[in-house]
Structures are given as C-alpha cells and as structure tokens.
C-alpha cells in the first residue's frame, strides 16, 4: 500500500513536523478530559499486567493446587489464594493475570484487521462511488444481515475454534461497520475543495484517498476504534463463555467464567472476578472513547 504515498508528509518544509506534532498535541489534549485519563489509566493498567504477567502472577495459571479454595485462604504449600482457586485448584488471580494476555493479544489484532479491511473498502466505496460502492455496500449489508454472534457461531462451527478463526470472524463481522463509517466520512470530505485541488494538480487516486482524505478522518476513527475494541473484547469473552473460544487450558476470561459458572451459586468468587476483569477493561475503553469524543468535537 505504499504506492503513491510518497505524499506531502515527507516533503518540503517541516514535513515530519506536522504529523509528529499533531500526534503529540493529540496525546497532550487527552489531559483536557479527566474521563479520558481515567480510561487510559485503566487500559494501561491491563496492558502492563499483560506484559509483566510472569512477574506479577503468584503461581502458574495452569497448576492445580487446591480446588475450590476460597479467597484469602492458603494452599498446602502456604501459597496465598488472594482471589481463591477454581474447581481444578488453579489460582484465580494468576489466571486473570495471564488471561489479560489472551484478550490483549487477540482483541487488538482482530480490531486492527477489521480496520485494515474496513478502511480500504470504505475509502474505495466513498471515493470511487458507482458500481464499486454498490458492490461493497451490498456485501456489507449481507454480512450485517447476520446477527454478529450468530455469524461468529456459524464460522466457528464450520472451521473450528482457534485464535486465527476468531480473528477472521471478528474481521468479517466488524469490517462492514468500519467501512460504513469511513465511507460516510469520505463522502463528506471528498467534496471539500482541497480534494478538488489535489485532483486538478494530477494526484493519483491512491494519494488522494490515503494522504488527503484519510488523515482528515482520523479523529472519529480513533474514537470508533476504542469503542470497537471494547465490543471485540466482549465478543471474544462471549465466545469463551459459550465454549467456542480458545481451547483450554489457555487462560481466557470468558472461558474461565464458562468453565466455572455451574459453581457460581456456591463459589461465586470463581466467576465474579473474571467478570470484573473483563468489565473493567471495557469500561476503560469506553471512558477513553467518551473523553476522545469530546476532544474530537472541540477540534
């Protein structure tokens, strides 16, 4: 996708400046919104937990030590089960810590894939219009006609459950949504005079789509990406909960709830803590999106 994007950003006076400065001022502006800062803090917390999981986890997430241990009790070796242990005797805290890795690897990758597909399709549909637009819109409509979870289930049912298939399913289900947003913005931006100015100086369609139009759509797209990352986190969790997620013994928050939910009425700690973990991550992303919306609107 490097064709024709030897774009303005690398040319002439302070080319790099505009991009880099824009990014820095964008991050700096986050501070204007307390809600965005809280959101960022929550998200960063889970990112750090995922990165340093081996250092932070008190035990192995797969070691079976003392089944049904209640929170705050100790195991035979004197290990403290801060959040208790599950039905197989695995430390819930350690599983949550390692589980952060699963969700923070798959959700961003899947969202990014959906974005690559959605942005390219949306740019093409909005800029080229005509039959390209019609075709892409029809494909998008068709995919969106399937309720998202049903689509996931059908794909997993057909191709089996694996990390790759989950990413594929999310890309397929979220791509059309991204495409619609991008297309809508392109239809607006393409009518502005600077696009016509680029056309009359002979710029290629790729340059206009990626260097003239796309940078002007980044604000709303970043907000949408935060929200979508939240949805994808929920979707991956839900698949785990339905028993269609990553195969065990991978610690995965949805899977943890699924495996232990039959004990929920007796030992709620096994299910409540993973629920809180996933909810807090989504809450962080939603807060971030909320704060960013205000900032984008003001710009």
């Amino acid at each position, binding site marked *: 996708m490097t064709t024709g994007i030897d*774009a*303005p*950003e690398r*040319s*002439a*006076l*302070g*080319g790099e*400046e*505009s991009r880099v400065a*824009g990014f820095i001022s964008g991050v700096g502006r986050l501070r204007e919104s307390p809600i965005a800062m809280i959101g960022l803090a929550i998200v960063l917390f889970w990112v750090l937990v995922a990165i340093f999981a081996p250092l932070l986890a008190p035990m192995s997430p797969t070691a079976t030590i003392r089944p049904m241990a209640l929170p705050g009790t100790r195991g035979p070796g004197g290990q403290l089960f801060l959040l208790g242990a599950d039905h197989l005797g695995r430390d819930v805290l350690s599983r949550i810590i390692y589980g952060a890795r699963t969700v923070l690897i798959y959700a961003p990758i899947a969202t990014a894939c959906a974005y690559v597909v959605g942005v390219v399709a949306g740019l093409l549909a909005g800029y080229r219009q005509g039959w390209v637009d*019609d075709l892409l819109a029809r494909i998008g409509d068709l995919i969106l006609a399937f309720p998202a979870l049903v689509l996931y289930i059908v794909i997993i049912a057909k191709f089996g459950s694996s990390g790759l298939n989950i990413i594929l399913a999310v890309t397929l289900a979220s791509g059309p949504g991204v495409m619609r947003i991008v297309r809508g913005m392109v239809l607006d931006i393409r009518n*502005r*005079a*600077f696009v*016509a*100015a*680029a*056309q*009359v*100086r*002979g*710029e*290629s*369609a790729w340059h206009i789509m990626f260097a*003239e139009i796309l*940078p*002007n759509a980044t604000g709303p797209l970043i907000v949408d990406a935060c929200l979508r990352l939240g949805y994808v986190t929920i979707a991956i969790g839900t698949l785990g909960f339905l028993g269609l997620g990553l195969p065990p013994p991978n610690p995965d928050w949805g899977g943890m709830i699924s495996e232990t939910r039959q004990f929920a009425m007796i030992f709620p700690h096994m299910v409540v803590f993973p629920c809180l973990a996933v909810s807090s991550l989504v809450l962080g992303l939603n807060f971030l999106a909320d704060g960013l919306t205000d900032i984008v609107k*003001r710009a």
Partner: protein
Amino acid sequence: MSLVLDREPTRTIPAPLIAVEDLSVTYSGRHGVVPAVARVSLALAPGQSLGVVGESGCGKSTLALAIMAYLAENAEITSGRVRFKGSDMASMSPEELRQVRGGGMAMVFQEPGAALNPSMRIVDQLVEAAVYHREIDEGTARREAGEMLRDVGLPDVERILGSYPHQLSGGQQQRAVIAMALLGHPSLLLLDEPTTNLDVTVEASVVELIGHLRRRHGTGLIYISHNLGLIAQVCDRVAVMYAGEIVEEGPIDAVFAAPKHPYTAGLLRCIPQPHTDKTERKLRPIRGQVDQLLTRLPGCGFAARCDHAVAGRCDQGELPLVDVDAGARHLSRCIRWMEIADATETPDDQADAGGVRDEVLLTVRDLDKFYPVEESGLASLFGGRPRRVVKANQRLSFRVRRGQTLAIVGESGCGKSTFAKVLMGLEQATAGSIELAGLDLATLAVDKRDSVLLRSLQIVFQNPDETLNPCYSIGTQIGRVIRKFGIARARGQVQQEIKRLLALTRLPATLAARRPHQLSGGQKQRVAIARAFAGRPSTVVADEPVSSLDVSVRAAIIELLVDLQTSEGTTLLMISHDLGLVRYMADRVVVMYLGQIMESGTTAEVFAPPYHPYTEALLSAVPVADPALRRRRIVLEGEIPSAMAPPSGCPFHTRCHRKLGAACETQKPPEQRMADGSHRITCHIPAAELAQMGDIFGKPGGRRDDT
C-alpha cells in the same frame, strides 16, 4: 458642539420602543473570556428602522440575541441593560418574557430552512405564533395565518399552509418565517441577516416585502446585516459595529455620504459597485483582518488597521461616541474625526487593463453538460421509466482571449460552477468542445491530462476554509504542488520557490510552517492563490474567490488577483454572482440563467443599455451602498425554477418583466448581435426595441422608464 452620549442615551428620543443602554456582553470559552459587545447604546422609537452593519465577529448577532434576552449559556451581561417599552428585560419573569418574545418583539433569522421545524406543517407553526399572544381561537388563528401568507406575497396559500418546510423554496420559507413573526402583532421586528443565503433577485423581493410590511403595520425594525447596500435600502438610521463597539451611528444618507469614522469610510471604499468600474473608482483595501480580541486594548479598536491612527491619541483610554452633527444625531467614535474629515478620496490615475491582446486562448463551442437524475438503485433496475436529466449547461459558446479577464455571472443553479468543473476536467461534457492550446478539454478527464496542461490551467476555489488540507503545513502543501509540477526538485530550490510564492501573494515567509487553522480566511485564500500560480499557469479559474470573505478583506484579495494577472500575463476566468466585483475586474462578461447564456459582451457593453431583461433585473436587484443612487426598481416575481424542470422556450419567461407573449413560452429565443460591437443578447425582443432601453442607474443619457 460635541455631546458625549454614552452617559445619557435615552434623553434624545422620548419614549423609545427599545433602548439598549451601555450594554456589554462577554463569552467565556476555553481560551478565557472574550468580549463580544462593548458598551453599546441604542434607542429606537416606534415605527423607526435601524440598520446594524458589521463584519463577522463584530458582535451584531450577540446584540440581537441580547435584545431578545436569549443569550447562550456561556454569555454574560457585564454591564448595562435592555429596556423594552421602558421595562428591563433582565428583571422580567419567565411569563412576562414569554409574552414579550413573539408578542412584543419578533425575530427573523438567516437560514429560514433551519428556523422552521422540519416535522410540523407550516400552518401549525404559524398558528402557534398567534394563539400564545392574542386572545383568539385556533380557527381564527388559522384564517389569519392564511391572510398573512397572502400578505407576504405567497401564492397558493392553502397548499403552503399544509406543507412541511422542506417542500418550500428558500424564498418561500423566509416569507413564511416573516409571516410567522408578524402574526404575534409585535411592535418590533428584529431581522438577523434575513436574506444572506438567498439569490440576488429573490433577496431583492424579500427586502422589498420587508419595507412594504413595515410601512403597512408600523412595526419598528432592527435590520442586522454585513451588507451595506441592503441597509441603505431598508433603514432610516444605521449603526456601524466594529469589534463589539458602535463606531459610528447616524442617518443613512449622512453616514454613507460623509462617513465620520475611518472604518465606515474604509468599508465603503473597498466594495466594488456595479455602477462604477475600476477606472472611475479604485478599490482601497483595509489593512489586516478582523481580529478576535481576547483582551480589549485601550483606545480605538480599529487603530491597528487604521491609516489615520496616531500613537498617543488613538490608543489611549476609552474613546467616547461624539456627536459630529448635533442636528441629525450623527455619532462617531473616532477621536480625530474633525482632522481627517477632509481626507476625501481622489481617484488615482488608473493604469488601463493593459491593451487587450487579440489571440484567442480558449474557445467554448456548443457545450452541453447534462446530469442524469439518479433513481435509487433497485427502482431504476425494475422501473422502465425514462431517465430525467438536469441540463446544467446548454449550448454554451464563447471565446476567451489571452491575458483577458472573462467573468461568468449568474445566480445559483445557472450552471456557472458546472462549467468550471468541466473545464478543469472534474466532470465531462455531454456534447460540444472546449479548445485550449489545440486540445479539446470537454471530455478530457483530469486524470487523463498531462502535467503541462494541468500546470497551465489552475483554479482558486470559493471557500477558504476548505481549500487547504487541515492536516499539512502551508509549506508542505505549496511544496507538493511545486514538486508535482516539476518546478523544482531539490529541497533547497523548493524552499526558495515557496518563499517566492509567499512573497508574491504578500504573505510572510514564516507562514510556511503554520497549519491552515492558524490562518485567517484572507490568508488562506492567498495561499490558495499562491498554489494556483505555482506552475506559472496560462489560465486561472477563480470560482467566487472572495464571496466567503469578510467585506474589509475582499478588496485586498481582489487587488492581489488583478496585480498577479497583470504581472504574470495570466488569463483569468472569474465565476461570480457579484455584479460589482465583475464590473470592477472583468474585460468581458457572460451572463447565464438556468444553464444558458443570456447575454455576453465587453463589460462596458453589458453594464450599459441595451440590456437583456434578466441582466436589467439583476442590475436593479443588486444592493448598492449608496442611498443617493437613483435607479429603476424591477422586482422579479417568483423564484428561479428548478434546473430539473426548466421552463420551455426562453428559460427566463416565467419571471420576465418584459415578456412579449406566447413566443417566449414556446420558442427558443434567437441570439441577436447588438449594434455596439461584440455584444450579443439572446431574447425575442427585437434588437431595435432593446436599443431603446434606458440606463438602470440614474445616469444622463438614459430614458426614464418606470416598470
């Protein structure tokens, strides 16, 4: 004798209808507290009309909202008050306020389409205005609503009553809004730019209506506008605002004939007028731009842009409004008004347009551009209905000579911008040809054009806020053009060229590192001009280049374009609806209506009789900031028909005041060559009869002719 009026504002006029006393309003925003209105005092007696003029950000709309006691939440009145019939608006109870709004004074805004509720029928919105203020039942209110609609000149009242707002045209919507305002029987009508987005001929008829209603109902009027010409037409008195202050106030004739504040004088000097051209009256731009001041500096708010400003006097203390003519109550806030009063304008000796060369550069022949009307996807698949087309351009033919300025004039929907798109290759013509340098451009799409052609044909767009990509610095954007056109490749050379272009458009070199949002509208438009001239083009299209700019900034951009054209020898194709601007800049003029050429000729030929009836009406409709100017009034009926269903025969016959009869409705009018050289008029009226026509402006030589 000079009287300081700020301290005793209500004494001179007994029992004013509305009195604004020493009013100051500030807005608090992210960047601190911004003053919007500063110590404004105004008074209006019943039945009087006052114009408030000013450019964007001068505080005139805030003043209007303050009068209605409807300021935004972040606005604060820091001093003064507004009294309506003697009672302070600020101390009214919500119920009293509700009674005054709509019942005592009513407001008409710009953008009538947005001012009407999209999901309510017109009749319901009109009835509301009456029943909440007067003791009448719904049935009576309905009847009155119908009568009022007839009063504001709307046809087919029953249909309009039952319509939703989107089913009416812009002019009809504004008439409905005015009717709604009058239904509460207010004694004061506040109009905030009521005709701003309407076409000139429609604007003229709405303004005519406002004057008529005012006389008939005896309503007091406050008319807010940026357009000095409109104020001159409607009002008895005018107040000129700058940076939140009233800088001059007085009777219309006195203020326009002998302005006593440099800002007013500057504004009047920088508007091109349709009855004078550049040899008679050269434009004098006002320096700089309207600044949004965060903190008020001491002294005169206009001092930074004023040629008469003197350090030590104009920048000291609070300047009072002084009465410069006690008898007429003509006030000015200029401390030097007496010293500079005699500095009247002497016309500069004008360099002529520099000898029109004869070489034809661009030939347009029988150009058609039709757009199919898109039926939505599936319906067009199944329904075998014939496809409708919009004829945006029909059989356009004209020639442009090298180094000339050709102007294409017309109102919205006349197809002037479509022609620009076809010329630039953004759209392709349906038939006909555009010949430039041996190439036919009519169907040559922009991505099929080589870089030599692209370079030699460039365009300056209308809206300065959209003409630059907000994501890149000015230098980056100009540099991109320089590289793209192969003017320079090496980094140093490109920098050099950027500097040259910025200097050429009279911009500081430091601007290169800035981003578009840090520039004013005028600066952005200069950058757009620099970009268009980067490849040393032979032809530049300017699509309404100044219509989105503040009045005081326009003149400087116009002068820049004229100078560049002369120094670079560029051919300029101007697209505009502003007849004053066209008269000022153009060598030749093409007048268009609904996609067709009505009249063409040299500027002198088009602006003098014989006229095409449409040109005649246009010239009569243009607001002119000169109350002393006498001209025939021609008010066209109805509105511009839709380009989807243009009238048969002559497209102008539905509104023409000189319509002959059935021939106009059925037959295409012939193109007639006038006696005075290259002048052509497309009309059924015989050339000999057209030649009898008098000058629209009250100049000697023309036969008085009352229509």
